[in-house]
């Protein structure tokens, strides 16, 4: 992007070139499908990874591309989860309708709270987002006639998704979660490879200057915040539907913190950071907590510190060089 301003045609050609599907992307999907068949006894873990990856992707939309830090992204995850759960209990057991409701509720909540987030700098945003999540959690606790309160929402029974019943091994849950992740990742791909993203990155890097060149800063931020919240809502809906249970911990601070960790591991500002981070994080947690159920937090902490201090950049550069030969979309400037 440092080249002198080219003609309009060249810019459009540039965006078109970015948007072409790279070899590595169908390869990733193939790996996911291969894992589905290769590990028939880990379907549930894979479904959990898919949900976390989607959640991380949603946070990356605002953190990586628009530079909005959040410590309370679980607010939208939780809203989506409760929306999907309440739809299943009171309206219809159809998963797709529930998922749509989760996305809509999450998105609306994102739009409604975006004025709060647009004000202030990073520290203010951290506090405000944290506060929003706490308030949501307390409302869910209070309105127990609707949410089941501290006992969790009872009686969620999902209907079949496109004719497939959810089974105890988790095959359908896993396939469903992976499919939703792929569809939404492709959608996000359209967004992050568009001129819209370019304007967001400009805002992230220098909001004053972005405003000066005529980018409608607030409108763009509201749009991406709403989209991100909708994604988080869908992730929450998936979480609720694949586990058929919701309780207050969906609003928990740990959820917001974990998803930040996932992005720290996977890297922000590129589409697959959340995915890579989610896979690594979940596998690490699963392996360590099976080895030492009492002390795995220690090892996770240690590995994270080492990762951030010593190896992350080098590892990422290595991976980039490797992936670079296959030609991935380089969306980070």
């Amino acid at each position: 992007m440092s080249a002198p301003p080219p003609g309009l045609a060249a810019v459009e050609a540039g965006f078109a070139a970015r948007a072409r599907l790279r070899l590595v992307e169908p390869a990733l999907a193939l790996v996911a499908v291969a894992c589905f068949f290769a590990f028939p006894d880990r379907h549930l873990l894979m479904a959990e990874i898919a949900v976390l990856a989607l959640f991380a992707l949603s946070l990356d939309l605002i953190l990586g591309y628009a530079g909005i830090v959040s410590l309370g992204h679980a607010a939208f995850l939780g809203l989506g989860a409760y929306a999907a759960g309440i739809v299943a209990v009171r309206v219809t057991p159809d998963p797709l309708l529930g998922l749509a409701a989760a996305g809509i509720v999450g998105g609306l909540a994102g739009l409604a709270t975006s004025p709060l987030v647009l004000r202030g700098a990073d520290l203010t945003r951290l506090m405000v987002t944290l506060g929003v999540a706490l308030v949501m959690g307390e409302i869910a606790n209070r309105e127990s006639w609707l949410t089941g309160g501290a006992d969790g929402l009872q009686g969620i029974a999902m209907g079949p998704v496109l004719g497939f019943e959810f089974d105890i091994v988790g095959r359908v849950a896993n396939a469903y979660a992976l499919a939703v992740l792929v569809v939404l990742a492709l959608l996000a791909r359209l967004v992050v490879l568009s001129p819209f993203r370019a304007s967001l990155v400009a805002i992230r890097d220098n909001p004053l200057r972005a405003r000066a060149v005529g980018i409608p800063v607030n409108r763009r931020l509201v749009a991406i915040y709403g989209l991100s919240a909708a994604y988080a809502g869908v992730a929450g809906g998936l979480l609720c539907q694949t586990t058929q249970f919701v309780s207050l911990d969906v609003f928990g601070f740990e959820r917001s913190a974990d998803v930040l960790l996932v992005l720290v591991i996977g890297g922000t500002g590129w589409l697959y950071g959340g995915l890579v981070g989610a896979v690594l994080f979940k596998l690490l947690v699963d392996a360590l907590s099976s080895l030492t159920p009492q002390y795995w937090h220690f090892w996770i902490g240690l590995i994270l510190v080492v990762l951030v201090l010593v190896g992350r950049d080098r590892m990422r550069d290595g991976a980039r060089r490797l992936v670079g030969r296959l030609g991935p979309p380089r969306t980070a400037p």
Partner: protein
Amino acid sequence: MDRRLVLAAALGLAAAAALPARAQEVAKIGLILPMTGPFASTGKQIEAAVKLFQARNGDTAGGRKVQVILKDDGGTADVTKRLAQELIVNDKVVAIAGFGLTPLALAAAPLATQAKVPAIVMAAATSTVTEASPFVVRTSFTLAQVTVPMAEWAARDGIRKVVTLVSDYGPGIDAEKAFTEVFTKAGGTVENLRVPLRNPDFSPFLQRAADAKPDAVFVFTPSGVGAQFMKQFVERGLDKGGIRLISTGDVVDDDILNDMGDAALGVVSTHHYSAAHDSAENKAFVEAFRKAAGFRPNFMAVGGWDGMQALYAGLDATKGQGGQALVDAIKGTTWTSPRGLLTIDGATRDVVQSVYVRKVERKDGELWNVEFGSSPAVKDPVKAAKAP
């Protein structure tokens, strides 16, 4: 052919043939506990008790070797559910057990029904848990079960006016309801206050309680928060104002009682277990537990111990079979636990046990909940009221 090769092949074949047979012999039990996070103390107590049980009673029951697989859910319901599902599907466990909190038990209950695998609840104490699945068996207690005797004792002891102060969530509300109902029926008056569950600051509520000038304050907080409450109770000077403190045993939890100091002296509480319970079984249990784990067992530990007792008794009766047969075998079982006589109700699969009235006293330099009264064979009042 090379002799060594033949030998190796034969060995391999033998091992392959022996494997399924051996797998048949091992009865796996999936133990899902919060080993990390804010409820880690629950997990540590139960895990230590389960280990101790196996160390003292051997690791075979019903002719099968019993293997416990411990998993950490960190107190998060969807993780509990996934772990339960993986244990059932991949490890083919005969039973799942543990469940530190009500939502965790409720999350796993539908799986128990679906897979016909017994779920032994060793901690969660909301009344509804056993109704969530016909495969749930509880060896801990219910909040109403230990609250009703408190209300009865208070009424008998001449207390006329009580302010209740409970944590604002399921079990707290259960406790408030049970106490208020019984105590007002006995002619007393009650005022209800609820404190937020997370990061509670008791001072404003204690001030309101003091202003109401009651004879006693009845408190329920989840295990672990009691120490903080006690400190603020003394800071506000309520103990000197002649207001008595009565509570369920969760507040004066054996695990943290010693850290509360003299503030806790004289607190009267009702619960199903005190580490000071006077019986040979309990003395042996407490001594062995302290030696093995390095801390004092509390009511969570005894829930874990009795959960294993129920499983062993059930497996013995079914000759190692799981499923419906195991639940049926556990129903109606009676045994002498460190806490006293214990029965699993055949109809509700909930625990029937003595509830003791205790007072905090200092003995040998340590604080103990010393029992001075008891109500034998208390059923869960919530379910008893529903029964026809």
